């Protein structure tokens, strides 16, 4: 491929890639500049630079509590996902391989049904009655489990297929381990890295979830995205600092997942 690099064709491809990068970067770069600008209105370039918006943001108790509550909901949902999905996958692959086809259809549901549609039913079913969860973080944890499900399921399945589950289990059992011991002490450690990558990536998109959070819970349990939306009338510089802080956090997570993923493939 290197032979084509300095030719006109190579130049064209480089130009396209840089252009793609520029398009993707533009809104982020604009927000970043806005967040460190002291004031920027009716001119093309800002008047001066300052960090006061970040200082103001990170000392706002409402922001800190929304950030913490987002963390709680996302971590809760991921813990729930692992607790529910790991045994399921193990059982499906080890005992009932035929169920995998059914599961592959079921995990399409969260994809095929947009959160807005689910929320209509969720609001009516759990607004009152024995399972009154609307307005509490519990309903978000349950919903986020369904949001993460397709991704977690596929990611862990790929890992299970890569480690030869049956051979590993047979070997462990030959050496005297029970099924439970073998699953916990032999299979689980082999899945650890793949699981970490799936968790980090799921976390980064759950952290940005807005639809369920806004419709089902709203300000009764502020998450970061709901807080951000409610700050729409405050200074644009302040919301920019918020957007950049959020994106930076997600960036670190996806970057960590990337590194782990590379480690794994080597």
């Amino acid at each position: 491929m290197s032979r084509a690099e300095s030719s006109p064709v190579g130049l064209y491809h480089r130009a396209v890639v840089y252009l793609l990068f520029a398009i993707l970067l533009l809104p982020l770069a604009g927000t970043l500049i806005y967040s460190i600008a002291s004031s920027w209105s009716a001119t093309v370039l800002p008047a001066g630079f300052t960090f006061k918006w970040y200082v103001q943001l990170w000392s706002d108790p409402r922001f800190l509590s929304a950030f913490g509550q987002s963390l709680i909901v996302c971590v809760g949902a991921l813990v729930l996902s692992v607790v529910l999905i790991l045994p399921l996958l193990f059982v499906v692959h080890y005992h009932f391989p035929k169920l995998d086809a059914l599961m592959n259809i079921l995990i399409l549901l969260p994809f095929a049904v947009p959160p807005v549609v689910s929320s209509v039913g969720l609001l009516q079913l759990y607004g009152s009655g024995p399972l009154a969860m609307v307005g509490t973080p519990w309903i978000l944890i349950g919903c986020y489990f369904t949001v993460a499900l397709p991704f977690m399921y596929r990611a862990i399945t790929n890992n299970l297929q890569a480690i030869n589950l049956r051979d590993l289990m047979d070997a462990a059992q030959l050496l005297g381990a029970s099924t439970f011991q073998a699953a916990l002490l032999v299979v689980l450690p082999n899945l650890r890295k793949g699981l970490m990558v799936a968790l980090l990536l799921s976390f980064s998109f759950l952290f940005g979830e807005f639809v369920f959070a806004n419709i089902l819970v709203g300000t009764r349990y502020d998450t970061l995205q709901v807080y951000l939306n409610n700050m729409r009338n405050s200074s644009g510089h302040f919301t920019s600092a918020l957007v950049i802080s959020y994106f930076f956090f997600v960036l670190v997570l996806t970057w960590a997942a990337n590194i782990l993923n590379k480690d794994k493939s080597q």
Partner: protein
Amino acid sequence: MNAMTRGKWLAALCLVPFAIFLIVFQIAPLLWVLVNSLESEEFGWGLANFSKIFSSKFYLQAIQHSLEISFWSSVFGIIIAVLGSYSLRRVDSKLRNFVNAFANMTSNFAGVPLAFAFIILLGFNGSITLMLKQAGIIEDFNLYSKTGLIILYTYFQIPLGVLLLYPAFDALREDWRESAALLGANGWQFWRHIGLPVLTPALLGTFVILLANALGAYATVYALTTGNFNVLPIRIAAMVSGDISLDPNMASALAVVLVALMTLVTVVHQLLLKRSYHVSR
């Protein structure tokens, strides 16, 4: 043997918690929507909600807006993603890995934060709007219009398109291009008879996912227009969580229309896919 079946029963027991959570948070709400879409506040059970939707200018406008914005943002998104991922394959690995990783990360830059970023850049006093105005290229630009929304949606379609299409170019082998050139095919002929037919299934599949992604999108348009732009997801949410005129049954009927549109797109995709295989053989 007895221990064996007991083991299987214990194993099956592990499936129960998962099933309960899936039913409570995914299947039951969907069933509620399906059943209640058939009940109207005024007319009782039947298709009254649906006939109301298809005879109301307001609801039809929401459907039309949703379809238009989804269609055009998917078209623009996929064109940029195809050109981008094809070129990504042909630059040095350092640049490729960097831009690929960056596209991955920006796929999380959607919804409320994205809408705010666009307001800063392209809003009434956005810096790009001002720049283009000063340069005399545009008279005025309204981000809060259909055109504005198409641009915004296109932006969040691009990373997803690159993510899905980049691996698809694996199917297109470099030596085919060389063989075609040796046999006298020019660039256009190569794409017309080899490149595009090979990529068609991936292109169709990606297009369908982009369409579905845009049809169901709520956060971005809500954050941009505070729910004042008439698209399906906004209408649905307004009727269950708005301040006025709550009507969960009508919301359910609209939700069924939305899911039906997405299903229709998927069915058409399957039909086209069968045809494209047939033709390419």
